[in-house]
């Protein structure tokens, strides 16, 4: 094996040779430069491969003597991994900086090499003083490199960096001097366990070394100098600092861990996690991209340091450090490197304005990088976070967990906001404006794509090594990738393929499902396939739609069959991520998708904490009220329960029409599934007992009332349907909260029927708005004659939803009131009556405004909705009719599922009659009576018709006048004005205001904290000194 000393020799030699070679021409010096970097990367890869194949360590004693006489180096698996990371980032960074490096004086390349060498030294050395030397080498090279392209801003940033670095070096040196005095050695291995470290003097000496390393890791709030440096640096250099330098520094910190006491480690842990939470909080206010990435980098590095310290404090062995800190680190360095390179390729000057938007591949890479950095699956940080939170909860470090969650949420917000700016281009939401042109970046796209590939491969590897070998687990990702590869095919063909893919998933997943799972599979996978087919209704390729759609539906499918909490949670997050991107694809999806994302990520984190508290394994967990409460809160957010619903209207309404339909009809049901499953796993006890469940019930009922009330005031058809869904899911939640046979039968029946009729209504509206080019209802009208099938579908949908007998909806109402009254929830029942009455209002308003009334001149020639939309509606319609005539078709399976959990039968069938303690209902007889009466009446009407004449549109009794225009005759705008006068005050968006206030508070705090960062080097120096002093106080040395 080549000795690692060769690295230093090669770097130094090349460094000296470069000016000479440069005399022969820039091409020669550049070749030398690239050859060295490539060779270094090759060597690092070789080391890594060797140590993976044959673990062990290589001890190198310079000069042939043993320590303490000489400096010792060590090369093992950990070192070679860190070297490989440094080399990879250095290559990518240099590639991105290639133009600047080639144009600047040759000293630029020289300092670049010195920086990389210094970082390698930090990784390899086992000598504390030697560590100082490499700190200085890399530090000085860093300052120099910051200013290598001679910009004024960079010069000043480099100076501030130097001041802070100088203070850190001084502290380090003081610490090393004391340590040498106390232990008599500078060799780390000999120093470990030395008696000299005990006592206050030892602790203080170690603290100085530790503080210096911490400062180099850019902790909040003593990191103003670093943020300025990130902002000023060339993005490639930013990547090098954020990826390679941070890796080396973290490795150096990890190296001195054996010297640290628990108190020292606690300081590292808290300093790190506080940095993570607050750096990201401050990042919320940042729009200048490179500065924003700077906050993110500081936060991520703090997070890794915290995870390392946490592992050292609480977990035996080094596996945890590998899995968690290693996972977080490699995730960070690849993702952040990729993001800095993207910023270099697409941004004008780091001020957030984009030169153009990326093509599909680069956009996908950007999505991967941001999702990875935020800790979404299947990327390494996701698995690492899962483990970290599990152990943190087990050790009752709740504040630590809260900071992890908060930091992640903040980071997700600003990083995804940046991603939106990147992939949509521009800063404002102006759909009318010409779309931002695609910018072909050529070679500059290679770095981000490679980083994305690397991170995806490592994520996949993490999943595989955790035992996820089930093909169904991989299906969502594989499906997404497959459709990404097929993205050039026509949209209609992809719609068929997607339908087939989802059906195939169902075919393979179904045999292993329980009856309970099958019921939801029908709604989710069945609905998924129907809506995949409906996806063919638009002309063109629909670039990017199908990969995300297939991934989302299949992750939902996997969520149904997942056997471990981790598998379920992964699918859950993946589904949220896919849903986010699908909402974002809507023409006006920007702000809606961001709010959705915030609630998804916040909810998911609560859910993760709950799953971990409850033991982490489905089926094997102990009942835990706290776990149920956390998981439940996360699920209520997904369900759009009242108070947590603010994301729902926008997300449902602004997504593409077919996805809106799937979102509302199918996707929302997975929260019901998970809630029921959670009750089975964690028990039914909530903190607060029965009262808490009563509150949950009321949350559902309030959602039903206020959702319906908000729906009646919407002019936009999709918003009306979105609020309607919120209301309908409110009933489901209330029914679920009853937790008995009657309640759950009701909940499942309502969920299943909502899937059927809401799908019809959404798709019908999709057809109408496709043909008329608007979603605003009063701009439509009279479409019944042009789109009769869509009308019938919508009609059956509203009859079913309203609960009017004889269609399925009545069954839902009957079950709901019987179970509520039997449970003694009388006022909930009364409020449901109100909600169901209000539902009539918006239902009528919608069908009247869209399909009835006066058609507009420009819509006189519109055609029926495309076959792609009509067929799914007809299938749903058949199902609605079948379940209306034979309610047992659907109630029998539901009651079988519920009966397995709640044997006491409040509802039971006697023949075709459903009986409860309060009454009875015979669905078949009802429909027969209604149909007979209807037919007889119809015959009477037809027999009495005498020469009727179909008249023209305006031939109406209009005060002896003829109306002038359809627009003035179609009574549709502000349809329920009296209602608004009477009750409009109830729906003035108080929840939105409350959440806006919370968000405002966060950004205000961020703004206040940001004032610390004055940009003044002296202030920054003071920060560093004070920070070290305060950390010392926290150490509590007496």
């Amino acid at each position, binding site marked *: 094996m080549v000795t690692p000393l060769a690295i230093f020799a090669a770097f130094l030699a090349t460094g000296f040779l470069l000016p000479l070679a440069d005399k022969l021409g820039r091409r020669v010096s550049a070749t030398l430069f690239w050859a060295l970097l490539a060779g270094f990367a090759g060597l690092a890869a070789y080391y890594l491969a060797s140590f993976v194949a044959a673990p062990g360590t290589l001890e190198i004693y310079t000069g042939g003597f043993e320590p303490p006489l000489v400096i010792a180096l060590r090369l093992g698996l950990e070192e070679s991994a860190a070297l490989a990371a440094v080399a990879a980032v250095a290559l990518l960074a240099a590639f991105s900086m290639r133009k600047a490096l080639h144009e600047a004086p040759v000293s630029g390349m020289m300092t670049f090499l010195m920086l990389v060498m210094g970082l390698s030294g930090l990784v390899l050395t086992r000598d504390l003083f030697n560590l100082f030397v490499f700190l200085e080498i890399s530090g000085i090279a860093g300052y120099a490199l910051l200013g290598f392209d001679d910009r004024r801003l960079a010069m000043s940033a480099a100076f501030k960096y130097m001041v802070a670095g100088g203070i850190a070096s001084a502290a380090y040196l003081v610490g090393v001097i004391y340590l040498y005095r106390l232990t008599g050695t500078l060799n780390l291995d000999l120093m470990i366990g030395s008696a000299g470290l005990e006592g206050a003097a030892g602790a203080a000496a170690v603290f100085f070394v530790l503080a210096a390393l911490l400062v180099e890791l850019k902790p909040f709030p003593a990191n103003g100098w670093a943020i300025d440096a990130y902002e000023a640096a060339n993005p490639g250099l930013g990547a090098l600092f954020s990826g390679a330098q941070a890796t080396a520094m973290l490795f150096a910190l990890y190296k001195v861990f054996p010297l640290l006491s628990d108190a020292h480690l606690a300081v590292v842990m808290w300093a790190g996690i506080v940095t993570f939470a607050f750096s990201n909080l401050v990042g919320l206010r940042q729009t200048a991209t490179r500065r924003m990435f700077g906050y993110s980098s500081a936060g991520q590095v703090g997070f890794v340091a915290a995870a390392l310290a946490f592992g050292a404090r609480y977990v035996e062995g080094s596996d945890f450090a590998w899995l968690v800190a290693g996972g977080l680190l490699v995730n960070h360095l690849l993702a952040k490197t990729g993001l800095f390179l993207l910023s270099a390729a697409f941004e004008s000057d780091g001020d957030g304005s984009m030169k153009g938007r990326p093509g599909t591949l680069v956009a996908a890479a950007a999505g991967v990088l941001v999702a990875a950095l935020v800790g979404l699956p299947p990327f390494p940080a996701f698995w690492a976070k899962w483990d970290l939170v599990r152990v943190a909860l087990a050790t009752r470090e709740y504040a630590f967990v809260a900071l992890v969650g908060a930091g992640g949420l903040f980071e997700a917000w600003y990083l995804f906001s940046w991603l939106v700016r990147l992939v949509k281009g521009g800063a404002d939401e102006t759909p009318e404006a010409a779309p931002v042109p695609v910018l072909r970046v050529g070679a500059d796209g290679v770095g981000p794509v490679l980083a994305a590939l690397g991170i995806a491969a490592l994520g996949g590897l993490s999943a595989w090594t955790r035992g996820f070998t089930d093909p169904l687990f991989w299906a969502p990702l594989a499906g997404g990738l497959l459709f990404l590869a097929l993205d050039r095919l026509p949209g209609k063909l992809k719609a068929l393929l997607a339908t087939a893919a989802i059906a195939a998933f169902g075919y393979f997943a179904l045999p292993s499902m329980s009856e309970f799972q099958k019921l939801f599979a029908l709604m989710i996978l069945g609905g998924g396939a129907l809506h995949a087919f409906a996806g063919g209704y638009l002309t063109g390729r629909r670039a990017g739609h199908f990969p995300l759609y297939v991934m989302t539906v299949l992750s939902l499918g996997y969520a149904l069959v997942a056997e471990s909490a981790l598998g379920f949670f992964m699918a859950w997050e993946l589904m949220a991520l896919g849903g986010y991107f699908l909402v974002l694809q809507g023409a006006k999806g920007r702000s809606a998708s961001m709010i959705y994302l915030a609630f998804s990520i916040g909810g998911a984190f609560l859910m993760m904490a709950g799953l971990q508290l409850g033991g982490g394994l489905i089926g094997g967990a102990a009942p835990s009220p706290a776990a149920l409460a956390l998981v439940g809160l996360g699920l209520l957010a997904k369900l759009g329960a009242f108070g947590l619903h603010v994301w729902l209207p926008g997300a449902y309404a602004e997504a593409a029409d077919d996805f809106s339909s799937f979102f509302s009809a199918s996707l929302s049901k997975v929260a019901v599934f998970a809630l029921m499953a959670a009750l089975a796993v964690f028990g039914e006890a909530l903190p607060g007992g029965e009262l808490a469940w009563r509150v949950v019930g009321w949350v559902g009922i309030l959602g039903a009332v206020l959702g319906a009330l908000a729906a009646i005031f919407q002019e936009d058809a999709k918003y009306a349907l979105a609020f309607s869904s919120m209301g309908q899911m409110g009933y489901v939640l209330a029914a679920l909260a009853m937790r008995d046979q009657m309640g759950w039968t009701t909940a499942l029946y309502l969920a299943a029927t909502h899937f059927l009729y809401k799908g019809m209504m959404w798709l019908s509206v999709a057809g109408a708005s496709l043909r008329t080019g608007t979603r605003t209802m009063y701009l439509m009208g009279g479409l019944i004659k042009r789109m009769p099938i869509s009308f019938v579908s919508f009609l059956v949908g509203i009859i079913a939803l309203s*609960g009017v007998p004889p269609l399925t909806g009545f069954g839902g109402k009957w079950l709901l009131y*019987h179970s509520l009254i039997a449970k003694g929830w009388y006022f909930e029942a009364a409020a449901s009556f109100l909600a169901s009455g209000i539902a009539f209002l918006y239902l009528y308003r919608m069908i009247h405004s869209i399909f009835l009334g006066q058609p507009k001149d420009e819509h006189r020639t519109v055609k029926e909705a495309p076959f792609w939309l009509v067929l799914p509606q007809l299938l749903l319609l058949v199902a609605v009719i079948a379940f209306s005539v034979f309610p047992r078709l659907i109630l029998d399976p539901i009651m079988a599922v519920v009966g397995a959990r709640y044997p006491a039968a409040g509802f039971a069938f006697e023949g075709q009659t459903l009986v409860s303690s309060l009454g009875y209902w015979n669905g078949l007889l009802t429909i027969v009576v209604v149909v007979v009466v209807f037919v007889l009446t119809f015959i009477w*009407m037809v027999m009495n018709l005498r020469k009727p*004449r*179909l008249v023209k549109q305006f031939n109406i009794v209009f005060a002896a006048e003829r109306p002038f225009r359809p627009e003035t005759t179609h009574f549709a705008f502000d349809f329920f004005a009296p209602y608004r006068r*009477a009750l409009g005050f109830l729906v003035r968006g108080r929840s939105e205001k409350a959440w806006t206030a919370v968000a405002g508070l966060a950004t205000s705090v961020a703004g206040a904290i940001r004032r610390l960062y004055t940009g003044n080097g002296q202030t920054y120096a003071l920060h560093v000194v004070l920070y070290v002093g305060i950390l010392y106080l926290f150490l509590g040395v007496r």
Partner: protein
Amino acid sequence: MEPSIPLRIAYAFASLAVITVYGLLLIGSMARISAKVQGRVGQPVWQPFIDIVKSSGKRNSISHGVMFWLGPVFRLAGGVGTYMFVPAVLGSVVFQNFSMSGDLLLVMYFIFFGQLGMALGASEGGHPYSAIGVSRGLAQMTAFEVPFALSIISIAVQYGTLDITKIVMAQQGGFLNWTLFTNPLAVVAAMIAFLGMSGHNPFSVVIAPQEIPIGPPTEYQSNLLGMLQTNRAVFNGAKLVLYMNLFFGGATNVPVMVVKTFLIYFVNIFVGQAFPRFRTDQAIRFFLGVPTLIGIAAVVLFAF
């Protein structure tokens, strides 16, 4: 002994015939009473019969489309269906109708069937007054449903059932057993709701003859109007029978039914002649105010 299906259908027709005739007479007599109160002579009691015959005899000059035709069909089917789901006379095989289809909830929700269908038909007519009328009617409906629902919940708690026949049975054995006396708050709440349901003053803004001539039925004429007029009789009858069953001890024979329903309906006229009309938003606020509180009190009284 359960009657056979053909017999049952025959009985249903008989029962329907009785309620139709009675309903029309009721409308006629109430109109005459109102006229007397206002110092007019008024129409003959049988005028509603004449109206229907006349309307049905006229030629249809106008149609606006399929849904427009179906509106009255829905309306009448809704009225007849509602009646079919209510047991009209306790213990009578003829007047049992098809009440075995479902309990009180079925009746309450089937009431919407005709209203919804009619609203849709009126909508296709394209007349703005129809839509305005529907908007007002539905808005008012959601409000009076609240005290009504509370009242129903209260008696469901009181009697432990939603089965109309059982509720009637529980009130047998003397008028002091009527819900009117055992649960007066629920009856008051329901009777106020009934005023809204019937659309007389002060809740007549739905068909507001002056501003939006007769509201939803604006575009309807000839036999379609005849169907709507027939429905008024049947539908009123059904609602009255329902109220009688729930709150006033039901009826064991037809004469008792006639007397009781007449008196219940008379409350409408009594109030209607004495009060002016509410605007829609006022009506909504009214129903959600004191009547709702009374309803809540009725529930609280029996539930806790």
